[in-house]
């Protein structure tokens, strides 16, 4: 179905603006010629701050350089929940566009009155408002007499697409110069006066409890300020980072732990997932008018392992107490949500807590950013009002942060005598894909589970289908099958901690759907591109597939050892369309040589930003597919370094080509998660094309290929 965007004059406010209607909470003008824009979404390396600045400058008719973007903080910013799900352009972008359109109108009104001319005769250029007879004023001149302390109203019409001069054009990201010049930009580099350094002690074995703690060794370390212990939560505060590390090492030697909890068998994940108690939900059901006779049924199982966020930077936070008030600096994706959880743990009203965002490294979902913030808050209680900075270790980042959930997916396709798919059943077994803070009556933060009076360990849930779902994300086929039944089984035990990783279940489900389709097309001897096009009705879907196919010269002539495969998906079934074609080379080791992608994000605000996100997603997915798997034995996570958790390296990176299909009249949607599913499927399908073996258990390592060869 081709769903056009609602017309820009549609009544009602964009969702983020309805929740935060006061215009002055979004933007302010200064008499010195600047506009400060204050979004509730945060920069996580995706370039959102630049795209939002483009939208504001465009709508206001000012130069991009006049826009100053304010860091998100619970003290000043609109509450836009969490920066996730590829929704920032949709939510913040639309709210800001609407707010700026209304503010522009308010200024024009004021200018018309002051200049004594009709509002329709006025024109704005870089903030200068001019009219007939050379009369002029400006935003800057009017800034003090126009109050934006009023609520946004529905019915404002933003500019039409063709009148925009910045949105739709590639602008250089405003955060990049600092980053290439080595200027302090990250939370890790943020200097606070009088800062102390903290480190937290965590058990090696999963969920072991701290029985005894001999503090003598740590007390002897120079610079020690405090040793903090509350149940199984323990940590040190020191004058220096080096001292904190040394004290932590000493404290570790003095710690006696209980046994941990049993972890699953990492080599039997599918059976583990299927055997656990779970909550079952029917995600989608479609019934055919008349059922044809089933000639045969194809049944396949696909699995993906736990995947680490594996940010290049270990998570970091700072906190400073002042009486019963605390200020927190964090790279969390949701400052208000983190504040809500901190309030639960600290038993304080939210007004006592200020949470301010500072950039971290890319997080790719819910990593330890929120956990380390609570660590800092707890340690800072013993710092006498001085700020405490806590940074996790690499080992901690790779073992104590939540992981993307492992998934087992079973698809059964009934075919009629002519090979047409007449019924489709898709079942998912997985832990929930979301345990973010701020959304439940109990906190989701690691230290909260370790206190003397602990909060129960949160078991991950799945967002509702209306928000794109979790383990079930992208499980409802986009293809025109006559009937289907989609079911999700969410585990209610959680021996390995999971939460949101890019795409949630989308990557796993697209991998499964696009793999079995390829298997069916191969069996019936139909070209996989033609097969997909034949089963799709949505022209935007067909367009990305056709564009990728043309660009990749589908299908290149068969050469020994080389394979080509296609994958397609529309993220969350409502977001960006993406088709990927992979060219791989290999036998027992797979080398992805080239990825060709086509993407449709509606209106691309910053086309180069979209390409950057798609390229990045494509390469990250390649890394997931070829290399990534959280390793563990029955007692502990063992993949705690880059050696044990390898990711794609420069020498292994394929060429990536991206074509953006611009649709300026369609609502913009995010690009950050569109490529993962399609690229995963494209690589797996290309491996089949090259080797004739089907890998249904990720990642595609040498062992998995040999195992698949043995099976076939």
């Amino acid at each position, binding site marked *: 179905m081709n769903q056009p965007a609602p017309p820009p004059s549609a009544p009602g406010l964009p969702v983020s603006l309805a929740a935060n209607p006061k215009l002055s909470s979004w933007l302010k003008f200064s008499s010195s010629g600047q506009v400060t824009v204050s979004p509730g979404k945060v920069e996580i390396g995706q370039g959102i701050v630049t795209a939002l600045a483009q939208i504001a400058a465009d709508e206001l008719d000012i130069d991009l350089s006049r826009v100053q973007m304010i860091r998100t903080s619970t003290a000043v910013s609109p509450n836009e929940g969490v920066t996730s799900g590829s929704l920032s352009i949709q939510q913040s972008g639309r709210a800001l566009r609407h707010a700026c359109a209304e503010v522009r109108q308010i200024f024009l009104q004021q200018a018309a009155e002051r200049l004594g001319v009709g509002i329709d005769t006025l024109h704005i250029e870089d903030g200068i408002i001019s009219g007939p007879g050379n009369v002029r004023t400006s935003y800057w001149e009017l800034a003090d007499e126009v109050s934006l302390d009023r609520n946004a109203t529905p019915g404002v019409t933003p500019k039409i697409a063709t009148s925009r001069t910045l949105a739709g054009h590639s602008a250089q990201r405003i955060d990049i110069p600092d980053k290439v010049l080595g200027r302090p930009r990250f939370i*890790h580099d943020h200097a606070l006066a009088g800062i102390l350094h903290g480190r937290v002690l965590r058990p090696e074995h999963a969920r072991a409890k701290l029985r005894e703690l001999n503090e003598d060794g740590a007390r002897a370390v120079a610079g020690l300020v405090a040793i903090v212990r509350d149940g199984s939560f323990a940590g040190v505060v020191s004058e220096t980072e080096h001292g904190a590390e040394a004290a932590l090492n000493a404290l570790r030697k003095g710690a006696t732990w209980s046994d941990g909890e049993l972890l699953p068998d990492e080599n039997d994940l599918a059976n583990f997932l299927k055997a656990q108690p779970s909550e079952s939900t029917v995600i989608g059901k479609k019934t055919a008018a008349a059922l044809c006779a089933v000639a045969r049924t194809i049944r396949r199982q696909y699995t993906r392992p736990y995947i680490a966020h594996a940010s290049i930077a270990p998570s970091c936070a700072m906190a400073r107490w002042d009486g019963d008030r605390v200020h927190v600096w964090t790279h969390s994706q949701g400052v208000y949500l983190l504040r809500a959880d901190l309030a639960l743990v600290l038993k304080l009203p939210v007004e006592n807590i200020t949470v301010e965002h500072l950039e971290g490294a890319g997080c790719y979902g819910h990593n330890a950013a929120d956990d380390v913030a609570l660590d800092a808050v707890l340690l800072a209680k013993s710092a006498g009002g001085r700020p405490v900075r806590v940074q996790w270790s690499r080992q901690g980042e790779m073992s104590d942060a939540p992981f993307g959930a492992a998934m087992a997916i079973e698809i059964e396709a009934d075919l009629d005598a002519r090979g047409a798919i007449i019924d489709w059943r898709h079942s998912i077994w997985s832990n929930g894909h979301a345990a973010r803070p701020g959304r439940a009556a109990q906190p989701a933060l690691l230290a909260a589970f370790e206190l003397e009076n602990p909060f129960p360990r949160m078991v991950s849930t799945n967002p509702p289908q209306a928000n794109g779902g979790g383990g079930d994300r992208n499980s409802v086929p986009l293809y025109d099958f006559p009937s289907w039944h989609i079911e999700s089984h969410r585990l209610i035990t959680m021996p390995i901690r999971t939460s949101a990783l890019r795409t949630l279940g989308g990557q796993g489900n697209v991998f499964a759907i696009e793999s079995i389709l390829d298997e069916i097309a191969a069996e019936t001897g139909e070209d996989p591109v033609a097969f997909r096009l034949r089963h799709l009705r949505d022209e935007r879907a067909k367009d990305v597939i056709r564009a990728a196919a043309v660009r990749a010269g589908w299908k290149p002539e068969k050469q020994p050892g080389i394979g080509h495969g296609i994958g397609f998906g529309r993220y969350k079934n409502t977001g960006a369309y993406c088709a990927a074609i992979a060219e791989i080379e290999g036998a027992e080791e797979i080398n992805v040589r080239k990825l060709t992608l086509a993407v449709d994000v509606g209106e691309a605000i910053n086309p180069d930003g979209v390409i950057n996100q798609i390229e990045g997603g494509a390469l990250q997915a390649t890394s997931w597919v070829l290399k990534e798997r959280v390793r563990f034995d029955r007692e502990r996570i063992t993949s705690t370094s880059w050696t044990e958790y390898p990711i794609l390296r420069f020498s292994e990176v394929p060429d990536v080509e991206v074509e953006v299909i611009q649709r300026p009249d369609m609502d913009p949607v995010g690009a950050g998660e569109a490529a993962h599913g399609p690229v995963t499927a494209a690589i797996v399908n290309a491996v089949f094309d090259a080797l004739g073996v089907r890998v249904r258990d990720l990642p595609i390592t040498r062992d998995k290929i040999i195992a698949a060869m043995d099976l076939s």
Partner: protein
Amino acid sequence: MPSVRFRLNGAETEVDADPDRSLLDILRGHLGMSGPHFGCGAGECGACNIIVGDRAISACDTPLWSVADKDVTTIEGLGTSERPHPLQRAFIAEQALQCGYCVSGILMSAAALLRRNPSPTSREVKEALDRNLCRCGSHNRMVRAVLRAAEEMAAG
């Protein structure tokens, strides 16, 4: 406490600290620099890469004593806002990063490469950066940026 002397971004520097301490810890802790980033502490990711002599090395697993009397260059010494290094200009021109946490280390590996090989091939750039990890998937843009900087430097 013994002191160790070295040249840091061209300036004579003396540090009073245990010579076995990690150079990264000294740069970020004692000397208050923010360019070299901590990523793993084990020389596995390259986020803290610096140039010692003419080679890019990871500062986190380099002891302070080993740079005595040597030239140490960090990202802060590569270029300035007013006079950015061609690599820095090229990374901006190519928008060659997403989160950028790995970039200061990658620029140092690239700078060391261009010192010993002013006109590398794409393959040679990838080899030179192979010990640097990037999690956002900006690798191809970074390779293009290094090649662009090399061309610019060759053109003078």
